[in-house]
């Protein structure tokens, strides 16, 4: 936002409307924090953003219905990107979140960053935000290398990040939230509350929303919280605005409002980085796209000329792993039947069944309601309508005890929080769900516990020091095996596993896959939730896909492909039909 007050230009057919100095619209507060980007690069420093918005984007008269703006080629006048990440890498412990991430953001463009879950998008965002520093590679502002030591440094450099979950101060007023750290001052450095309020009101007018700057921000809807975050970005000399899945929690009307704001920001010369799983939104609002896969940038291009299929292919295109399922016999009797299960606002009308010896995989994006369905089946969460039937008997609602008694085992997504008692030993954790069998006269027999744990450790090829070590000393993959052992010890008829291989190394991953297939071979019904498509495709006998709380597709093992699943998960299917 180099030139305050230019915002109103976009939607105005009258060219005079884009003249600077919209009265009251421009919050020119920033004498305190006027952070010209370090080294304004080869382009003439003064002419930066203003010149870009005028000359570069050929869009002053935007058509009255902005929903059908063609993706105009908006390569801006300045050849130097506002902000670039060049061959960046970032690891957390043994996990390589980003291997080779590159992205160029130009002023005046909305730039999409897409990729599957776990492709490294969030880590890239955090590097741009100064939250993480790259292990290798560079961050360039206007072509000059910079190091962002923290969020404050990124803000000073003109980078604003709007996280998926907005980060406001619930006890403070909306106006205070917007101006925190750079409040307008009176004499003796006192905060000018009145000016803060009027400027906030002016910002909301400019964004076209009705929000009271004087109310505390507790209780604002997610959409309104995002608007406050955007207003915050507008008060600074913001050059780059990063929006991490801003539309995930918004209604259609709110998305339309957000897109108007994005267009205005773009017209104003800012670079907008837009992260979304909804490809139709990407095509609606963005001019260029960067696709990430497995921690690396695999495509950076103009959007014009690309199709949704092209993007999906770029997001997916990897070597198919070895098929492990399929050579088993026919599945047996039905173990789990779910009929029209509904929880208001979370998932709707979910019907599915799992038979003995069958692995049913549930795919979908994070937040599509998959884990919530599993939690409802196991009785952790309530549901509003529908039935869960296990081996012909209807299961009591919201009772994990009843679910366990009916023979269900549940391996949750977050094993550290929900699956293990981290301070207890390996042996105790393995035995935890089977204590009734290891007990005599109310006391757990230590010898029986040890024998039981040793047996399972061998069967699962668990790598451990001593069985009495705390389970927190094991690697992530082996911790997952302990959770599996804990449930397998009960001899379940149905095993629900949520993201069974998240964050574990490849070798152990293969162990876990083998184990699931072997269990199915022994007649256990397995219901697996996974975000990793190769896993879904290789392990699942049948594959169900959820999108926004509903089942949208079902494929047999033979029919399924990554493209089909992604399409069903992102809604491209409905577009195509």
């Amino acid at each position: 936002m180099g030139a305050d007050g230019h915002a109103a230009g976009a939607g105005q057919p009258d060219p005079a409307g884009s003249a600077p100095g919209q009265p009251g619209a421009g919050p020119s507060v920033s004498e305190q924090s006027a952070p010209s980007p370090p080294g304004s690069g080869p382009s003439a420093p003064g002419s930066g953003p203003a010149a870009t918005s005028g000359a570069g984007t050929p869009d002053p008269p935007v058509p009255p219905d902005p929903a059908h703006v063609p993706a105009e080629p908006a390569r801006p006048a300045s050849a130097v990107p506002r902000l670039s990440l060049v061959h960046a890498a970032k690891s957390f412990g043994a996990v390589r979140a980003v291997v080779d991430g590159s992205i160029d953001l130009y002023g005046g463009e909305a730039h999409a960053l897409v990729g599957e879950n776990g492709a490294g998008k969030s880590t890239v965002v955090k590097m741009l935000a100064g939250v993480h520093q790259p292990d290798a590679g560079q961050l360039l502002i206007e072509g000059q290398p910079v190091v962002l030591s923290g969020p404050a440094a990124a803000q000073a450099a003109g980078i604003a990040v709007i996280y998926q979950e907005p980060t406001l101060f619930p006890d403070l007023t909306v106006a205070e939230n917007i101006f925190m750290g750079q409040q307008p001052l009176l004499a003796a450095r006192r905060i000018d509350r009145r000016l803060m309020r009027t400027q906030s009101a002016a910002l909301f007018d400019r964004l076209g929303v009705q929000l009271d700057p004087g109310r505390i921000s507790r209780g604002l809807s997610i959409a309104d919280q995002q608007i406050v975050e955007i207003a915050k970005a507008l008060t600074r000399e913001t050059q780059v605005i990063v929006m991490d899945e801003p539309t995930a929690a918004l209604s259609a009307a709110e998305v339309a409002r957000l897109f108007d704001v994005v267009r205005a920001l773009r017209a104003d010369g800012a670079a907008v980085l837009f992260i979304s799983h909804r490809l139709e939104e990407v095509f609606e609002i963005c001019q260029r796209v960067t696709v990430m896969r497995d921690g690396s940038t695999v495509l950076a291009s103009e959007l014009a000329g690309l199709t949704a299929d092209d993007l999906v292919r770029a997001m997916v295109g990897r070597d198919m792993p070895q098929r492990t399922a399929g050579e088993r016999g026919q599945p047996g009797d039905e173990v789990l039947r779910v009929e029209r299960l509904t929880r208001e606002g979370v998932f709707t009308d979910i019907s599915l069944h799992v038979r003995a010896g069958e692995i049913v995989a549930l795919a979908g994006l994070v937040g599509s309601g998959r884990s919530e369905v599993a939690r409802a089946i196991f009785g952790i969460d309530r549901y509003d309508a529908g039935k869960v039937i296990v081996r012909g008997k209807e299961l009591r609602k919201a009772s994990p005890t009843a679910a366990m008694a009916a023979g269900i085992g549940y391996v949750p997504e977050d094993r550290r929080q929900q699956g293990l008692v981290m301070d207890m030993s390996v042996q105790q954790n393995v035995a935890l769900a089977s204590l009734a069998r290891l007990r005599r006269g109310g006391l757990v027999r230590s010898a029986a516990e040890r024998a039981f744990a040793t047996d399972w450790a061998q069967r699962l090829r668990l790598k451990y020091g001593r069985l009495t070590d705390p389970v927190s000393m094991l690697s992530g993959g082996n911790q997952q095996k302990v959770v599996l052992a804990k449930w397998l010890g009960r001899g379940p008829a149905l095993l629900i596993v949520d993201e069974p291989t998240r964050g574990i190394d490849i070798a152990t991953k293969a162990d876990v896959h083998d184990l699931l297939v072997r269990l199915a071979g022994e007649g256990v019904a397995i219901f697996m939730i996974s975000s990793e498509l190769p896993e879904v495709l290789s392990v699942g006998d049948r594959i169900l896909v959820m999108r926004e709380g509903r089942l949208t597709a079902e494929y047999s093992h033979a029919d399924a492909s990554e493209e089909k699943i992604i399409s069903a998960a992102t809604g491209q299917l409905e577009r195509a039909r």
Partner: protein
Amino acid sequence: MSATVDTRQETAGKPPRISSRRLTERVFRIRESGIIVVLIVFVAITVSIQPRFASQQEVQFVLANTTIFALLALGETMVIVSRNVDLSIGSVVGLSAYVSASLFGKVHGIPIVVVFLVGLGIGLAVGVANGLMVAIGRVPSLVVTLATLYIVRGLDILIVGGNEVVAQTLPNAFIQIPRAGVYGVPYLAIVIAAVIGVGAYYLRSYRSGRELYAIGSNPEAARLAGIRVGRRVFTAFAVSGAIAGVAGVLWAAQYQTVDSNAGTGYELTVIASVVVGGVAIFGGSGSAVGAAIGALLLQTINSALYVLGISPFWDQAIAGALLLAAITLDRIISLRLTAALRRRSAGVGT
């Protein structure tokens, strides 16, 4: 953008924005005036039973007691608002009171100002230690200040031994500090009131003050907003410690006889005052003025029970009941407020 402005203004009218602000303001005003109402009712009842409570001597006694607690409450407010707690202040009061008062006996003719500076220095040292451990060591403040509570009290007992400072060793000018006044209102109370006013204004109207509230309201967001969380929290502890040091010197002037028990348990009284005065125990909201009024209320109750001849054991029970009432009220208000604001924002949003 202008196209959007038009549509929004057509769909959503102005009224919600105004009424929503009124609502928040009204609630906050009620929050602080509520304590004042309780105070007035309590004084009125007490005076109607025992008119002696309105005498100049009693008023002076209550105000003199309140000054020390109200001053401590200012420092504690800064700490609690940032979602921390300082438990060490009672011990600091004790150590500072003994060391500063004993100086009069050891160094003849020592200026009173120097004695105050020594007290302030002792408090500042403890406050800095607390601040460093919380801000840099990332140790929860509850643990850190519980430890310094014991350490400083232990140090105090070590230094004092079986001794005590007695009134005769203190210069008259020193003893007069909490007593001199007009119409039963000590000058000191006026000075302290002014200091609290300045403190409250700082917390309300300066960036660094608001940042303390921001930190208490959402520490993670404060970090993401680029607020130097460590520095602010450190400062709050340093100020709280320094204030406790000064309060210790005032304690010596007020009570004149100082042994190793001085200030024991003050931290809990001060925290109770702060919470009764409307400062949220988990940070983010409340004012230093409210905290001072909370201190006044608790000390008034204390004296009133004495005047009425009710067993002082009731004092603590009543303080506890008030605390519960304050917390319950806070909870009810915040639930009501959240629900009301949510309804309003839903009305605006659709």
